């Protein structure tokens, strides 16, 4: 079970600055555990961001993205109270969606 994302979005003019923290191990598949065995790859592959339900950005990530990923992006035509939704999906098929109102 995954932990919630932390999404903060602030608008200035009509541009919203969105900052997202995700809780994820982002295992590369190349790291050895203390018992010498490789830890299997486990990382977020897809990220989708939407403004009021409309997709504004999609991303694909590889295992080089740091653990507990941080993502910042900017959205035009936004105003306070609008909803930002972020979804991630990892290589095991697990996914999570969280939402925040723009401040």
């Amino acid at each position, binding site marked *: 079970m995954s*932990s*919630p994302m*932390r999404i903060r979005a602030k608008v200035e003019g009509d541009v919203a600055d969105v*900052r997202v*923290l995700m*809780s994820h*191990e982002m295992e590369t598949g190349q790291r050895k555990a203390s018992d010498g065995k490789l830890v299997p790859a486990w990382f977020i592959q897809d990220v989708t961001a939407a403004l009021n339900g409309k997709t504004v950005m999609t991303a694909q990530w590889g295992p080089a993205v*740091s*653990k*507990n990923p*941080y993502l*910042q992006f900017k959205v035009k035509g936004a105003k306070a109270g609008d909803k930002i939704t972020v979804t991630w999906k990892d290589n095991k098929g697990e996914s999570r969606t969280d939402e925040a109102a723009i401040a």
Partner: protein
Amino acid sequence: MRKQIVRSVFLAAGLGLMAGGALAQKTETEKGIDRYRELIADGNPAELWEMQGQELWKKKAGPNQVSLEKCDLGLGAGVVKGAFVSLPRYFADTGKVMDLEGRLAHCMKTIQGIEPKVSTYNRDDHKNIVALVTWIAAESKGMPVNVPQNHPEEKRVYEVGKRAFFYRAGPYDFACATCHAEDNKRIRLQGLPNLLKKEPAGSAYTSWPAYRVSNGELWPMNKRLEDCFRQQRFPELKFSSELSVALSMYMGVNGNGVASLAPTIKR
């Protein structure tokens, strides 16, 4: 005889060199690393733990099915703001000086009826302690450190902490003071706070809990101290042990008045 010769060689050849390296000018490398730290400070994953901690504080748990909201962290039942910067302190109900992590375990036990397992970092109930501590610390962000020295026990624990700070032992003969009793020293590129001085002591004391970039873990003060001792080549420090509390007290009091930073992000 040998010693005599050796000494004079040392004096003749050695002293000239000693002076050069000791100057505390910031190198280009150090400036670059300051910039790095600035950039990573924005978007500290510690916020993920803060969110969890806030939830846990309010969540009914344990055999008694009550939340921790009545827990007295030293400023009265349920008062969170300011608690972090005024711990460790003496608690009349236990007759002991306690740190934040120890006090939280006490509240889990007395209020929620849990027999808390908190001796291993981030395992069992300690996982919750880590999240709670992160949120509680964040609630005191910017407030001045105000660790009390009123009760005789608080004074005694400070004195024990001072002695423990200078206690050299282990195969490397290291004490806390070996690395943390002078200004502007480094291990590799890592700056070492002089914990005898107010500003660095206060900043260091309130730098934990911190998100550790190297392993993606959230370290509370007890884990920070325990890992210092690991690298001193000591045995394993027990969380919220008398020594751990005493060292926290020593650092906190030395840093009284400095604005709290926690939670931070560290390499």
